[in-house]
């Protein structure tokens, strides 16, 4: 949308805003919900048509019941997994951004650190768990470390990439204005990196729960969502196995959606033609007639 030649022409002119919102909600919420419903229908269909035994695969209803009927037991475990995911994600994101910035600004460090970063991701994460438990014990810390270990990498790579592709003419323009380097960094280089940064965060978000579950399997002393599932599996309680898998998936999707929401909020210019009213304190066009 770079070629609006008619001054004042709004996007999608001629359609009422109510209708537009309805369509948008239908497209952005309705379609994903429909695809999930279809997935459950497919699951149900396969189990019924092929007469799959309950200990091999339960029906969706049984899996859901296995969760709801044991909710009081499961809820603290879910909270634990969420905590590991969120702490680990935040630690990984902060570390990732920090490393990306430092590497972009100090080329020597980039050459020095990059191989180590790649190496860190080549280590099988399971193999990492045992020494982490030895060092950090069975607390929440080793799980947070594993999540952060997984999350920081895509963030660093994307931030580094974004910072090295900032338009140098724009940086030069800031120099011509006489801007100090730190202001140029904060006002030009950082916002210019928003898109790759959020790409990295979204990739990190999808892997964060996986990291937490691996951490729980390898470094848990008894009460965790992953061990609950393992226990259910040993008891041939397949419905509970499927149920906990669904729970883990829901945590993962929710976290991903939260990051997407943060992106939508933080980068309004990617979706909007006009800035939100009052998006910045004091940003009132007081001498402009109210619309």
């Amino acid at each position, binding site marked *: 949308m770079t070629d*609006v030649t008619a001054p004042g022409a709004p996007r999608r002119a001629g359609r009422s805003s109510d209708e537009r919102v309805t369509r948008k909600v239908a497209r952005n919420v309705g379609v994903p919900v429909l695809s999930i419903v279809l997935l459950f229908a497919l699951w149900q269909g396969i189990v019924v048509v092929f007469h799959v035994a309950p200990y091999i695969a339960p029906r969706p209803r049984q899996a859901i019941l296995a969760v709801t009927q044991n909710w009081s037991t499961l809820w603290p475990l879910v909270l634990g997994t969420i905590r590991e995911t969120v702490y680990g994600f935040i630690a990984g994101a902060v570390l990732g951004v920090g490393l990306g910035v430092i590497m972009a600004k100090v080329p020597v460090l980039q050459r020095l650190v990059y191989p180590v970063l790649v190496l860190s991701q080549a280590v099988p994460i399971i193999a990492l768990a045992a020494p982490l438990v030895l060092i950090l014990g069975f607390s929440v810390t080793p799980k947070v470390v594993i999540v952060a270990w997984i999350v920081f990498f895509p963030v660093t790579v994307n931030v580094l990439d974004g910072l090295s592709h900032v338009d140098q003419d724009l940086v030069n323009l800031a120099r011509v204005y006489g801007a100090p380097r730190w202001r140029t960094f904060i006002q030009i280089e950082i916002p210019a990196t928003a898109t790759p940064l959020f790409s990295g965060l979204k990739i990190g978000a999808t892997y964060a729960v996986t990291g937490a579950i691996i951490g729980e399997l390898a470094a848990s002393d008894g009460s965790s969502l992953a061990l609950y599932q393992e226990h259910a599996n040993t008891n041939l309680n397949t419905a509970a196995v499927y149920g906990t898998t669904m729970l883990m998936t829901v945590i993962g999707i929710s976290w991903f959606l939260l990051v997407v929401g943060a992106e939508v909020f933080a980068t309004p210019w990617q979706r909007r033609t006009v800035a939100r009213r009052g998006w910045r304190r004091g940003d009132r066009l007081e001498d402009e007639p109210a619309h």
Partner: protein
Amino acid sequence: MSASTLLELRDVGKVFGDTVALEPTTLSIDEGSFVAIVGPSGCGKSTMFNIIAGLLAPDGGEVRLHDQPVTGATGHVGYMLQKDLLVPWRTVEDNITMAKRLTGRVSAADRGEARRVARQYGLGEFLRHYPSALSGGMRQRVAFMRTLVTHQPLLLLDEPFGALDAQTRLEMQQWLLQVWKDTERTVLFITHDVDESIFLSDRVLVMSPRPGRVVADIVNPLARPRTVDTLVDPQFVTIKGQIMHLLHGGQP
């Protein structure tokens, strides 16, 4: 130097490796004048701009503004390129006030000025728009307003309309002349469009590559205001012939 000289180059030159980007050049620009620089790529016009703006240190010589040395220093000119360089994450208004934000605080007065300038030049309705909603011509106008509100007396414009279609370009040229008249700035304007250089300027510097140098300094006698008729004025055609001759290897 005369009392009304704004910018002076004294033996300013630049060599990159084996290439003489700009031979030592001496030049003075009068306050309030509109000087066009025309020449093919590689003639050193952008090198000259970057030296004046302070982005590039010359190998020798001195740049003086208001008779003060500014060689290698930044923060003393307005500067605009063919790329509008609007930041997509800021509204039109915040793009216009960008220089202030980068060098200090944006005051209510700065905001007020940005709005006034935008309204005066037909972008008042777009103050809260993001640049992605604007056409190429509108974006260049915003970029120019951003250059204008830096209040620098000297504006360096490096092919600002180079990416626009012919019709929009003519509109922008007339618009620029209007703004120049309103604001009494001094303009150095790079282009490789000979018509554009004559249409806009009081004076045309013709440059040539290998080595990059100014080969002619032509006073443009065409009366103002310039209109579409200017483009077919016999004097216009004479100057155009002279410049074309120089650009294709002729002697001054």
